């Protein structure tokens, strides 16, 4: 660190020197369309004197009178120009055929950098690559497009949530998702509130080196999003409209042979399949025979519903769901001149999900612009997002539909209010509600108002010095309401004891006296819940930066600055039962229930001040050394632990520029090597992994909670929280080393960018289970260590590029491994908080792993069965059954144009990991899963099993069958073994494909209004290839967006496909 500090001070001194020349030429470098080309090289002809254009294409160079300028930039033809008499040279460069343009990356603090300057891995993705298939969320548009980036859609449905990681997981209980920076300001709202059409480009800074400057938030990499700010030239008005249709693509595998019985009627023979139970939900009854049978109990009007006893197949379940329809209308206006830019956009998305009745709307309004007055300039963006969703208890309905016996005509029960067999009284099922009734009576509404503003002022007192100040604020307010109608039964339902059974010989029905339905299902009160939440984030940054030529050979870019963040979160959530269904807390019976613990009503605030500096020294534009340093004051930590240094040092060397003649080599024209070392931090574990700093606000304080049962009358009682407060907490530290190689082949038609990294997390914050003898059950500790390593390859290629044809193909590959080195002392295992109870961190294993129970096995892995009953038994110990994150990810994107037709597609493969399918357990419970009928419910020899021959020796089992292959086997013993539901999660997906047709200009040229019109048809999630063992669902799903990945649930939508058509017109 001492070295870094002295380097910084020397560099500061150097910048005061100036160099004398004779004439100053200024200008702008642009492409054919007049758009700026950043970082072009300008050389005084016949000398070594060179200058570089800035990110906006502007340059300034001092040259001898009469000298010419040679302007070059990768991907463009080099051009020689003579400045005019006033010393201005505006240059339009022509695009080179079949060569990739040099990528410009928005590095930390919003600085535009050439790829060659970077000592770390970064990927830039342009708006076109994101919006090709008109995804609603940016996350969907980024999936598969960068090495090291993994994005999971964790469910389907309205504005489906996603989980993003860069270079995998490192923190056991902290947030592992990257920091998102929009227009330079930390953005900690849901990324799906951004209109994808507003995005100019996205830079993905993968390693922590790239992001060290962001301090204790940055160890997970950064996704830098720049929004549109308007373009120079004639105002452009764009209107586009998209219609998307979402359909269910496949269901978990179902059996279609057996109807209802849930163990109510069997005598001693487990395999007695003879009795069909008309009111039962589980499908362990007799085989379908096509005869008319009663369904449900007799109802009050004396009738009994009769249906054919035959399976209706998968399509009957599919029919339950709607076609999801989403319309997306976009309007934008962009304009600009020499000194100002303006951009305005409106987007309206209205969506109906495949779940009947679920609908949502998102409206985004954005305005942005900039203005330059001499040395002063300012820019701003403001956006407002309204998001509304109205949905039922979606997970429950999936579960109900999925588990309905196959002979039940689900589509007949839509009219739950009037139809006699669809009302709560008349519905056949004694145990569960009619899913249509749930849709009509259990509703949730979520409304978000999200307002963000961002204003930046720049002062450029000297040509090489820029002072900028930015103030950004965002306020999210959310209102959530849940309503549930009352459910009541008629006196008849409560008392009727008669049940009709069809006689086995089909000759009619027998009536049997049983206990009434009311003994099983209960009536329910109406209920109402209401939660209000608001989250305010203010950030204020000051940055002084310089970009100066120190000598012929040396260039220095440096900045120092501060960033201040204040985050306030407030919320209250109450609920209670209602006697009359007027949904307002005023009508709640008794005292409304406040959500548990200190989450019912809360105020949280945290602040952070970051102090930072960074510098890049460039030598002749081919060797670069970069360092950054930051320290944070974090209000959440004790005074002693606030000052923790984060730093990076990285370097890059363009070898091809160093070696004479190599630049012009036809085969290998560009070679760059780079290396980086950084130490960054993460304190998100303070807030249990929340991205909001305020969520970790009070962890160092002890907490007392109201003791169970208290108050007793007027007697109050408090107990110390069993999560111990730890005033000594400090942020986790991630130390990362990275090396990289970048190669350009065939005049940069093929560019390969390779990285290898290893990072180690120390002082990892874990909510560790502690022995109760410590007096508490949990403690937040700096105790865990993990190690990540990986290789990333990105190949970009321009295979063909001519007037009629262009073909780009990008391939990215990631290999990633991680390992938990320690958790807390000699503690070996830690359950990961969240919805998935099977996710664990286990020392010596990847993180997270899936742990569950397996069968008892012999040394060779054969399942040991009982020599008499033929039954296997469950091993009582938890066993690691596989890692839950992919080890290998391959992404392929292509863009093929022929004249006016463009085809784009993205496919990816994820492999080397496992998934736990809880839905399988549910379906085996109800007997709807194909597994349960695999032997036709006939006794079978358990596959690959052995038994003890009585001498302690295990012999291969060829003849002892399980004693039951029906109700006593699948829902109980088989289902209790989690390993039966853990399968390979490997999958290929064709995520996106689109064909765009640019309508020839001559068609609308006459109108003189329309400048451009395109028509796009696209599809998303078109094909998924998965191993045969995965008979359930999309292995990308997860129970929530937290760290506990690796488990899908019965409450998730089946996979869907999306098709869309878009018309876009530019005026």
């Amino acid at each position, binding site marked *: *660190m*001492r070295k870094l*500090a002295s380097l910084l001070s020397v560099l500061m001194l150097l910048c005061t020197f100036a160099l004398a020349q004779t004439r100053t030429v200024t200008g702008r470098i642009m492409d054919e369309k007049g758009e700026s080309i950043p970082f072009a090289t300008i050389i005084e002809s016949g000398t070594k004197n060179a200058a570089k254009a800035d990110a906006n294409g502007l340059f300034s160079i001092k040259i001898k009178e009469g000298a010419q300028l040679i302007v070059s930039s990768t991907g463009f033809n080099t051009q020689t120009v003579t400045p005019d008499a006033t010393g201005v040279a505006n240059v339009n460069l022509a695009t080179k055929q079949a060569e990739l343009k040099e990528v410009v990356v928005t590095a930390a603090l919003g600085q535009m950098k050439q790829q060659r300057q970077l000592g770390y891995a970064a990927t830039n993705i342009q708006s076109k690559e994101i919006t090709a298939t008109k995804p609603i969320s940016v996350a969907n548009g980024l999936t598969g497009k960068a090495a090291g980036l993994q994005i999971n859609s964790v469910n389907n449905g309205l504005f489906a949530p996603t989980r993003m990681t860069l270079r995998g997981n490192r923190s056991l209980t902290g947030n592992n998702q990257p920091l998102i920076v929009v227009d330079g300001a930390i953005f900690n709202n849901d990324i799906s509130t951004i209109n994808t059409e507003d995005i100019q480009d996205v830079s993905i800074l993968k390693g922590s080196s790239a992001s060290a400057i962001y301090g204790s938030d940055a160890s997970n990499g950064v996704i830098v999003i720049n929004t549109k700010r308007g373009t120079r030239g004639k105002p452009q008005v764009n209107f586009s409209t998209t219609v998307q249709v979402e359909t269910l693509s496949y269901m978990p595998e179902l059996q279609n042979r057996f109807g209802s019985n849930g163990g109510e009627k069997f005598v001693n023979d487990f395999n007695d399949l003879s009795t069909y139970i008309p009111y039962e939900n589980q499908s362990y009854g007799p085989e379908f025979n096509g005869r008319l049978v009663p369904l449900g109990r007799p109802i009050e009007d004396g009738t009994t519903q009769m249906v054919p006893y035959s399976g209706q197949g998968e399509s009957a379940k599919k029919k339950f769901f709607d076609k999801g329809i989403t319309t997306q209308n976009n309007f934008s206006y962009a304009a600009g001149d020499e000194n100002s830019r303006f951009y305005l956009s409106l987007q309206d998305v209205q969506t109906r999900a495949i779940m009947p009745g679920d609908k949502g709307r998102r409206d985004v309004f954005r305005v942005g612009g900039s203005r330059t007055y001499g040395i002063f300039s300012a820019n701003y963006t403001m956006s407002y997002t309204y998001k509304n969703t109205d949905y039922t208890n979606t997970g429950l309905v999936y579960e109900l539909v999925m588990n309905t016996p196959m002979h039940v005509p689900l589509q007949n029960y839509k009219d739950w209010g009037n139809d006699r067999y669809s009302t709560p009284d008349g519905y056949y099922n004694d145990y569960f509600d009619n899913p249509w009734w749930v849709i009509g009576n259990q509703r949730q509404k979520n409304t978000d108002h999200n307002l963000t503003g961002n204003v930046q002022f720049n002062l450029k007192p000297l040509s090489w010095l820029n002072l900028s*100040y930015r*103030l950004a604020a965002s306020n999210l307010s959310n209102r959530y309401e849940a309503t549930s109608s009352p459910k009541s039964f008629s006196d008849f339902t409560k008392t009727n004891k008669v049940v009709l059974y069809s006689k086995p010989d089909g000759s009619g029905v027998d009536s049997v006296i049983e206990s009434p339905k009311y003994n099983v299902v209960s009536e329910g009160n109406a209920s109402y819940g209401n939660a209000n939440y608001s989250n305010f984030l203010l950030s*204020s940054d*000051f940055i002084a930066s310089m970009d100066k030529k120190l000598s012929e050979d040396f260039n220095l870019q440096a900045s*120092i*600055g*501060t960033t201040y963040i*204040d985050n306030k979160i407030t919320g209250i959530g109450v609920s209670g039962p209602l006697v009359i269904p007027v949904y307002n807390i005023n009508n709640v019976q008794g005292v409304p229930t406040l959500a548990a613990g*200190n989450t019912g*009503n*809360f*105020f949280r*605030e*945290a*602040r952070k*001040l970051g*102090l930072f*500096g960074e510098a890049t020294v460039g030598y002749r534009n081919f060797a670069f050394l970069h360092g950054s340093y930051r*320290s944070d004051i*974090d*209000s*959440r930590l004790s005074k002693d632990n*606030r*000052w923790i*240094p984060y730093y990076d040092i990285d370097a890059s060397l363009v070898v091809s520029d160093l070696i004479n003649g190599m630049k012009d080599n036809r085969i290998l024209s560009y070679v760059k090597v780079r290396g980086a070392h950084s130490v960054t931090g993460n304190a998100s574990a303070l807030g249990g992994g929340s991205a909001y700093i305020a969520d970790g*606000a*009070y962890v160092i*304080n*002890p*907490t*007392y909670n109201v*003791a*169970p*049962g*208290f108050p*007793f009358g007027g*007697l109050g*009682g*408090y*107990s*110390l929280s069993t999560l111990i*407060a730890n005033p000594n907490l400090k942020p986790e530290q991630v130390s990362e080393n990275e090396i990289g190689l970048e190669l350009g082949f065939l005049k940069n038609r093929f560019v390969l960018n390779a990285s290898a990294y290893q990072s180690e997390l120390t002082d990892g914050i874990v909510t*560790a*289970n*502690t*022995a*109760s*003898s*410590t*007096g508490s*059950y949990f*403690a937040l*500790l700096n105790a865990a260590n993990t190690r990540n390593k990986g290789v990333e390859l990105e190949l970009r290629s321009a295979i063909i590029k001519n007037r009629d044809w262009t073909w780009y193909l990008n391939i990215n590959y990631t290999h990633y491994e991680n390992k938990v080195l320690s958790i*807390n*002392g*000699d503690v*070996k295992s830690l359950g990961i908080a969240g919805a998935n109870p099977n996710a664990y961190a286990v020392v010596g294993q990847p993180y997270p792993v899936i742990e569950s129970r397996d069968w008892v096995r012999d040394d060779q892995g054969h399942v040991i069965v009982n020599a008499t009953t033929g039954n296997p038994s469950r091993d009582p110990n938890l066993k690691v059954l596989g890692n839950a994150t992919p080890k290998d990810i391959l992404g392929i994107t292509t863009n093929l144009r022929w004249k006016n037709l463009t085809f784009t597609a993205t496919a990816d493969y994820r492999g080397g990991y496992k998934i736990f399918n809880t839905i399988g357990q549910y379906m085996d419970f109800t007997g709807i899963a194909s597994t349960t009928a695999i032997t036709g419910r006939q006794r079978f020899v358990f596959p690959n099993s052995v038994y003890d021959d009585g001498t302690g020796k295990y012999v291969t089992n060829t003849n002892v069958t399980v004693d039951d292959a029906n109700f006593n086997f699948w829902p109980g013993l088989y289902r209790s073994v989690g390993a039966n539901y853990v399968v390979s999660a490997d999958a290929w997906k064709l995520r996106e494909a689109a064909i765009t047709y640019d309508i020839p200009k001559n068609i609308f040229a006459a109108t003189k209004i329309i400048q451009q019109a395109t028509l796009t048809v696209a599809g998303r999630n078109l094909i998924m290839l998965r191993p045969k063992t995965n008979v359930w669902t999309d292995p990308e799903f997860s129970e929530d967006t937290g760290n506990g990945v690796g488990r899908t649930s019965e409450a998730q939508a089946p996979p869907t496909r999306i098709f869309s058509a878009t018309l876009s017109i530019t005026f």
Partner: protein
Amino acid sequence: MLKKINSIFLVTASTIVLLSVGCKKGTFDINSPNPNVPSTVEPAFILPAAMTTTAVIVAGNPGGGSQSGNDLFNIYMGYWAVSGDYIPSAALLQYTLTTDFGSNIWDMAYPNLKNYNVIENTVDAGNNYRAIAKTMKALLFSRLVDIYNNIPYTDALNGGTNNFPTYDDAASVYKAQVDQLDSAVALINSAATSDAAPGDDDIMFSGDMDAWKTFANTVKLKILMHLTQTSDGPGYIQSKLSGMTTADFIGTGADAGVNPGYSNDANNHQTPLWNDIGSNTSGTTYTNNAYFRANSYAVNFYQSTNDPRIGLFYSPNSAGAIQGRAFGSTALEHNDVISGIGGPSLGKNPATTGSLQDPGQPAYIITSTESLFLQAEAVQRGFLPGNAAALYQSAVEESFRLLGVANYATAAATYTAQAGDATNFAGSSNKIKTIITQKWAALNTIDPVESWSDWRRLGIPSNLPISIYPGTTAPHIPYRLLYPTSEYNYNGQNVSGQGNIDAITSKIFWMP
């Protein structure tokens, strides 16, 4: 160097920020205290919460289930048996204990102790509160020793700073508790009027500090009497009881019980025992009420001694008789044939008799009957001055009173006048055996851990049966519980240092 850089940055850069966002000194000191929940709480609010939890540990079934807490010991000690209506748990019936058996006792006790620790370490709490905290800690720590032998003590309760507490020798923990109890009494004696005095928040004695002294002395007596069979025990007991008289201990009618205001207005307001084997507020009996039934060993004892309490520990079967079942029996005996536990009162709320009378009854920590039996033994062994026969008689009488035997004094006199060592103290050939036998008979359902300690210490009752469940190999009931799973998972190195523990054969240090 870092500090210097930091200072330079701080001065130059933060000036601008401070100006622009208007923050001032203290800007970053906003996260303490927590505005949402209390970070400090007066002893008057910690104490009732802590004592209510202690009541669950001592008098209830911590954590619920059928393999935890007192339920386990009621079975082992021949009071309860397992119903024939349920699929049996072989581990429970064969004494093949796992680290989950009774683990809630340990897992609840330590965090509970931590709450007392807070009071004890709060100087401002004053002598009275601190003395109560010390007393309750001694009660729980000694109970843990009685169940687990060596336990974390000096290193315990320091989560955050010491997450891996080492184990202390059980004998030293025991002696430390005796000293703690002496110092608790000394604190009360030296309390100034300015020391805070507990009131209704003291849910055992309503702030009666003399009662607390008596209670502390009784806990001390209980600890000391467990040491009778150790080699240095008698001398130590003698020295620690010197100068004390029977008046220093809980006497007739002074049952020490916790009651924060138990009632039937919510399930979690019921007295812990009712909350285990009673019924919920709407009258549906809890599972353990059906799962546990009368044990034929105890039923036979009460029948053979014509004990009127038999119908107060158990309820009549469908034929109106008291019928027990052997522990581990595989006979097809339904619950309508086998008597229930808790006495006649369940479902007849409010009732007035039985070991379980009312959802609002106190949770007994030490009953007068237990205290008097302890005193009787101490006098009989010569550690205290007094009349052992009279103490024995009033101990039995107090048991009859507690359970609601009609005309309890007369009934008790008739009962103890019967010939035989089990009842008749005067004619007994082994007076200690008579005391402990009757102590066992009295503590059915109420304090089975103390009965278990007596059996482990003295082998009384000597004919205590073991399970008859097929495959049972244990020669006797367990001597201790295994350390809980939480220790093996999260304090592995230290618990492993205790060696291989065998629940059947590994002894508590005070066992002969």
